[in-house]
């Protein structure tokens, strides 16, 4: 099978049952994405596929051979952090850190959804979204933090969202 992950090409011979998450972690050495529940309930495995956030544990690798896959390893480097990575460090948006790669990938996808004008369950008006804390909590509900670092996660995301709005305004 052939895959494009973080702009790099990979060839892999894997069992047909292999999830996209296990492909990355167990076969390609990309261990940044984490396995929490392995059933789509915790969000630790969140990746971006063709720019959209999904649960990598709940999809088969074989179904993604023609896709552009982005994991936490592709978002930034130690020297050049992605703005969300920097904001998570600044606001201490974690304790143990296990959910963090999924939180950050999810937030990247989520902010793109907001930019496209997608409403959420928290939107009073589906055609005019006011992006506030309740929107962040609702839109990030697929990412569980067992350490309950939620206030700081929300703060980090809010700061990056505000910066993005200034740039586009």
């Amino acid at each position, binding site marked *: 099978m052939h895959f494009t992950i973080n702009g790099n090409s990979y060839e892999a011979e894997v069992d047909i049952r292999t999830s996209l998450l296990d492909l990355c972690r167990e076969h390609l050495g990309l261990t940044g994405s984490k396995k929490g529940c392995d059933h789509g309930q915790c969000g630790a495995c969140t990746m971006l596929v063709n720019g*959209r*956030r999904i649960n990598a544990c709940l999809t088969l690798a074989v179904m993604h051979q023609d896709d552009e896959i982005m994991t936490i390893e592709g978002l930034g480097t130690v020297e050049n952090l992605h703005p969300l990575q920097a904001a998570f460090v600044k606001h201490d948006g974690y304790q143990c850190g296990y959910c963090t790669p999924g939180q950050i990938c*999810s937030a990247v996808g989520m902010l793109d959804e907001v930019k496209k004008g997608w409403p959420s*369950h928290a939107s009073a008006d589906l055609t005019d979204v006011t992006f506030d804390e309740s929107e962040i909590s609702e839109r990030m*509900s697929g990412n569980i933090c067992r350490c309950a670092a939620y206030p700081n996660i929300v703060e980090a995301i809010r700061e990056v969202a505000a910066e993005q709005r200034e740039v586009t305004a």
Partner: protein
Amino acid sequence: MKTFDYARPGSVAEAVQAGGRFIAGGTNLLDLMKLQVETPERLVDISRLDLDQIEEREDGGLTVGALVPNSDLAADPRVIEKYEVLSRALLAGASGQLRNKATTGGNLLQRTRCYYFYDTAAGCNKREPGSGCEAIGGFNRIHAILGTSDQCIATHPGDMPVAMRALDAVIVTQRGDGDKRRIPIADFYRLPGDTPHIENVLEPGELITHVELPAPPEGKQTYRKVRDRASYAFALVSVAAVIAVEDGRIASAALAFGGLAHMPWRNPAVEAALVGQAPGTAAFEAAADALLDGAKGFGTNDFKLPLARRVLIATLRDLTQ
């Protein structure tokens, strides 16, 4: 997970001939395969087929491709404008990640979240016909109070199908012989009876290709969902409501319910109790009486009877104010 053959047909015609279990988003099927609740011998990957468009029809309705993801359907400006109840129902379900993957066709076929269905050590007539129902007499907080049988008290877990039931959607399919069918959603789902493992009228190999939404109904629309936490949880009770009021009387009403039955639940008697009446407590209580006629709790889900009444009345009050 048990192993399987994998095929990726290039067209609908090839897919319905492929002979296997269809997979698109996979968010429900792979979950169940990991637990060996589902053990398909062959997966037919339809995720690349050309069924991901939303098209306007001349009658004012929309035709939704079976592969349109839940996220895209919820955010489509035409859906938001004409079918707010559907957008709201979709947004009330699952998480952002899951909605990006889950499809329109797959969501119609989502399987129950009954604890005993998921537990392969437990008796479950839906998973293994003839093995009993441990939800009856067991933990049944999330289970049905309407349309149950002594074989199964599972609920359909979806939100989107509840809205589609209120909107009288039509499910378009293609069979192995190439024949197409248009199945009104009212005729699509089955009650458990003594065959709870058969959940709908699809035949083996029959593929959902589209869902047709009729021209938008008159009136105000909403979807109200009550659950154990504020987000990312299945409905205990939900209601999809479309209500029109003219000259101080309820002119039309479409009400479908989630969390109460083996299928999105709609009872014409509930709507008949409202149409022609002035909005108010008397009419709303009569509608709730009609809804709960024949309802039965199984112990830990007894609370759903008063909860369904209150959710219905609150929703009617909001929409007719």
